[in-house]
């Protein structure tokens, strides 16, 4: 099949790509490059955490005990489950079960909202207790150098992660609406695949944030 045939028969094929395989290949390549930059972005925050944990080991240990392990664990389970439902939704689009995919994505978005609400309760508690970065720190139980730094890192890393949850959630809502309109099919699903990849990255970052902030 010549490329002009391919363009005539496939409305999804952009004119600057020779074939749909090459177009999908380029889309996946770009997504993984973007995910690599995301990994390095969060790696910078993990490095900041590691350095100050190295300096203020005892303080960081004490303050990790003030976080709610119950809420942290619930949020971990929520995100892992949402990762499962996104993977299932992608599978459903690939086999042409669009209604099932919509249901699974709606459930995923609800998980994302649940995560943000729980995180909001945790933030409110910290504001009330004065567990805040820098000069705003006024928590009496744990004092000394490094205490406010723990919460600088806590709010930066969980805040950036929560921002990623909001972005990922928006992408998933957009995909849900597109699937409802019948935009994707077993021959054309790469956008769903990339949206799912982004959501898995959000899960991936939390898998490391959770033990580092809550458990050790």
């Amino acid at each position, binding site marked *: 099949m010549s490329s002009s045939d391919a363009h005539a028969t496939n409305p999804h094929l952009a004119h600057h790509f020779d074939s749909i395989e090459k177009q999908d290949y380029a889309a996946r390549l770009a997504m*993984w490059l973007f995910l690599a930059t995301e*990994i*390095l972005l969060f790696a910078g925050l993990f490095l900041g955490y590691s350095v100050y944990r190295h300096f203020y080991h005892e303080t960081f240990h004490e303050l990790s005990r003030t976080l709610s392990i119950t809420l942290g664990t619930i949020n971990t389970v929520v995100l892992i*489950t949402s990762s499962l439902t996104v993977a299932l939704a992608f599978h459903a689009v690939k086999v042409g079960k669009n209604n099932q995919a919509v249901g699974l994505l709606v459930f995923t978005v609800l998980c994302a909202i649940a995560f943000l609400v729980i995180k909001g309760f945790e933030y409110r508690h910290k504001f009330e207790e004065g567990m805040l970065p820098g000069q705003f720190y006024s928590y009496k139980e744990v004092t000394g*150098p490094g205490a406010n730094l723990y919460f600088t890192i806590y709010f930066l890393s969980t805040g950036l992660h929560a921002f990623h949850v909001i972005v990922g959630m928006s992408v998933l809502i957009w995909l849900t609406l597109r699937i409802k309109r019948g935009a994707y099919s077993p021959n054309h699903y790469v956008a769903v695949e990339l949206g799912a990849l982004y959501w898995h990255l959000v899960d991936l970052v939390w898998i490391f944030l959770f033990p580092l902030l809550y458990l050790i």
Partner: protein
Amino acid sequence: MADQGPRTRASEPEHASHGHGVARYFIVWALLLVFTVTTVLTGRMDLGAMNLPLALTIASIKATLVVLFFMHMTEAAGTNRIIFVVSLLFALVMIFGVFGDLWTRSPMTLPNGVPSTLGPEL
């Protein structure tokens, strides 16, 4: 259109491997939950020096499961695998580069309030 026949047939085995059932997603999910419970239990046991390595090991196992199966790294093109692995390598270079500095500093160069037992004596 003549070459369409062979191509369709050639892509069939590939499609079969992509078309694995959803069971594997549920297995991965169950494993992730088991590892989450494990890390919560061991994290609160206060295992001392073992705490950090154990938590990071469990987190790495969970991340590997997510990347390999939820993110389909097992089926990804070679280029994409290289990009992912190289990004991890650079993250490690950054972390170990900085710690190479921290571990070899003299106490006087450390921030205020850091216990002076850290770092080699002058």
